[in-house]
């Protein structure tokens, strides 16, 4: 057991390049790309249509965006793992680095900052300096108090982490669209689902 764990951490440091160059390399060379404005406009029309469909009940819009994100996340994790083949993360700190430097980079070409760790290191925040989902968006007055425009991202993170046996809560703390200083998502690890870890790993 101890030999295995030592060699596992060796293999995670094995690829000599850092996570950042790894993520950059995959973004540049190995992923197909689309027009960013098309993406922004598509997401904007989704949110706007949801607001109309739910008759401006923004709590329902938030939870629907979260559910959509969850469905995306459980599928996207397979794409991420097939592309990167990264080994299992040893700690939440490493998880946060992988999320920030590889996952966000590969799929959205942004690198959020990780910070604001809780005291017992079970929660962290992601600070997005630029959010491609919300370019050109201005929230109307009634939405600006309740709607988390990029809530789909929270769902994606939760779905993806759940498929790798990490039960997490993800929610928005702050959003520049709502007048805050920065766009901040908080990720809190509730527990690692040890009984669902596939047999054959340590």
């Amino acid at each position, binding site marked *: 057991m101890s030999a295995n764990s030592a060699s*596992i951490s060796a293999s995670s440091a094995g690829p000599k390049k850092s996570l950042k160059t790894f993520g950059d390399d995959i973004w540049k060379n190995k992923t197909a790309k689309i027009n960013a404005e098309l993406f922004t406009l598509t997401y904007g029309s989704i949110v706007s249509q949801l607001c109309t469909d739910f008759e401006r009940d923004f709590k329902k819009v938030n939870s629907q965006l979260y559910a959509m994100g969850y469905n995306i996340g459980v599928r996207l*994790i*397979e794409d991420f793992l*097939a592309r990167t*083949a990264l080994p299992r993360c040893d700690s939440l700190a490493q998880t946060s680095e992988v999320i920030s430097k590889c996952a966000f980079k590969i799929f959205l070409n942004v690198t959020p900052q990780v910070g604001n760790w809780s005291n017992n290191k079970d929660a962290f925040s992601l600070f997005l300096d630029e959010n491609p989902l919300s370019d050109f968006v201005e929230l109307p007055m009634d939405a600006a108090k309740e709607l988390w425009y990029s809530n789909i991202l929270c769902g994606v993170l939760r779905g993806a982490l759940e498929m790798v046996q990490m039960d997490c809560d993800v929610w928005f703390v702050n959003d520049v669209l709502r007048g805050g200083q920065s766009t901040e998502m908080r990720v809190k690890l509730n527990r690692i689902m040890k009984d669902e870890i*596939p047999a*054959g790993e340590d």
Partner: protein
Amino acid sequence: MAIQTILVINKSGGLVYQRDFIKTGAKLSSNEYLILAGTLQGVVAIASQVTPKALQISAKTGSKTANEPSQLIPYVGSLGAPAQNLSDMGSFMGQDFFNESFPSWNQSGLKHVTTDQLSMFLYQTLTGLKFVAISTQSTTNAMAVSIAENLLRKAYCLYADYVMKNPFHDPEMPIKCELFDTHLAELVGQL
């Protein structure tokens, strides 16, 4: 190396995909494949508990690999066959799906079984999905194992593209995606 069958098993042990590539090979009924999938799921779990002791398994005669220290699985370009690039790799760009050696997620579970009539290779992902390839050649050399692992990882890439991104596919349900079938046949045909 001629691949006879490819199976995909979901994380609860249910068979979600099964495809034969050699028409004349021995055919099992679909029920038998389901049982095989469930057995493999159990055996992988048992194997991780019993290594490094070597034990005979009653279901399939063969030898399990001993518990090797985790190493990177070397990248085998073009799966050892003369170089032909897949015409369409979905959303993966560049020469090939991936071009570096990669760590295995399956450190102590069952990885391959060799009998005198066939070999079976198993690739497990971090999410509990298992890809199984059954080959008609009985081989134990390390090169064949690497080729098989590379092949199964490429099948995983195809799965991530054509099955996961199909909005009408329910996770954990049997796979009924034509695109996945065609591209998998093309991948296996490369060997």
